[in-house]
């Protein structure tokens, strides 16, 4: 399977993502420059973390106008997979690929630490290697990760199984939800109504090897292989 990692000016997780795909997952990956007007035939597009365009105006607000985003829209509309991580999630929301928005952390602090995540739906392209209720450890590193949407949108996300990951308390009961950033309903990751676009604030690509403190993140990428076929 061929993965395309988009590099915007200010992306800084593109190399980590490329490493996770090629060295750990053992699949093919290419970088896609934000000014490119084709996706080089990739099966999966990844919008990586970083600070595209210096977070000017709002995180992700300018990146959505990069030429490649028209191709990413077309790719998503065809039902092909898009993984949007951290700043990529912010871009996907600004671009209308996913509902809601990511606002300044409630604490006003940039938070960089491992968090625990509960798998809420394992019947998706991105989470089928996990079990519902399984608790994963992955790092977050963001200042603007407070997932926000109106109540109707939140209710719909929940009833349609589009909430795939929630933050849970780091020490206590795995069922006790807790937001390190003030996210509504402790939402850490969602999928689109069509199921092929996924956004999450935690970094699965930084949790792909025991030496990094956790290898729980690789399942996100392995899930794609299981569903889409190598």
């Amino acid at each position, binding site marked *: 399977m061929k993965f395309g990692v988009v590099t915007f000016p200010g992306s800084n997780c593109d190399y980590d993502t490329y490493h996770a795909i090629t060295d750990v997952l053992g699949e093919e990956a290419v970088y896609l420059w934000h000014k490119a007007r084709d996706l080089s035939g990739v099966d999966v597009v990844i919008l990586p973390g970083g600070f595209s365009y210096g977070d000017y105006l*709002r995180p992700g607000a300018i990146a959505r106008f990069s030429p490649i985003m028209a191709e990413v829209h077309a790719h998503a509309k065809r039902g092909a997979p898009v993984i949007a991580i951290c700043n990529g999630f912010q871009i996907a929301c600004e671009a209308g690929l996913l509902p809601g928005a990511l606002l*300044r952390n409630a*604490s006003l602090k940039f938070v960089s630490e491992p968090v625990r995540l509960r798998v809420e739906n394992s019947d998706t392209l991105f989470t089928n290697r996990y079990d519902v209720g399984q608790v994963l450890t992955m790092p977050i590193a963001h200042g603007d990760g407070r997932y926000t949407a109106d109540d109707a949108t939140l209710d719909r996300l929940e009833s349609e199984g589009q909430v795939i990951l929630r933050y849970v308390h780091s020490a206590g009961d795995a069922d006790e939800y807790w937001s390190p950033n003030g996210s509504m309903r402790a939402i850490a990751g969602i999928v689109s109504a069509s199921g092929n676009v996924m956004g999450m604030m935690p970094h699965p690509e930084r949790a792909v090897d025991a030496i990094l403190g956790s290898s729980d993140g690789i399942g996100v990428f392995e899930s794609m292989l299981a569903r889409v076929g190598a």
Partner: protein
Amino acid sequence: MNRFKVALHIVPRRGLLDPQGKAVADALQTLGFRSVQDVHVGRHVVLELNARDAADAEKDARAMCERLLANPVTEDFEIAAVTGGAA
């Protein structure tokens, strides 16, 4: 075509948690400004644009807010002033 300046305010939608506004309100209270009840921190944007008249300038600015300058999910905007144009 005439040249106009449009000033606009973009603020967090009322009812949404506004931690920045809350932090500033707390700081003002600490400084002794006991009268402060609530603060909302947003953005002030000044556009310089060409338009036929002030109404057109405002219409353009409104469309820019809806498409880019304000996030329709979390922010509200208001046109604060339209100045310039023919003397």
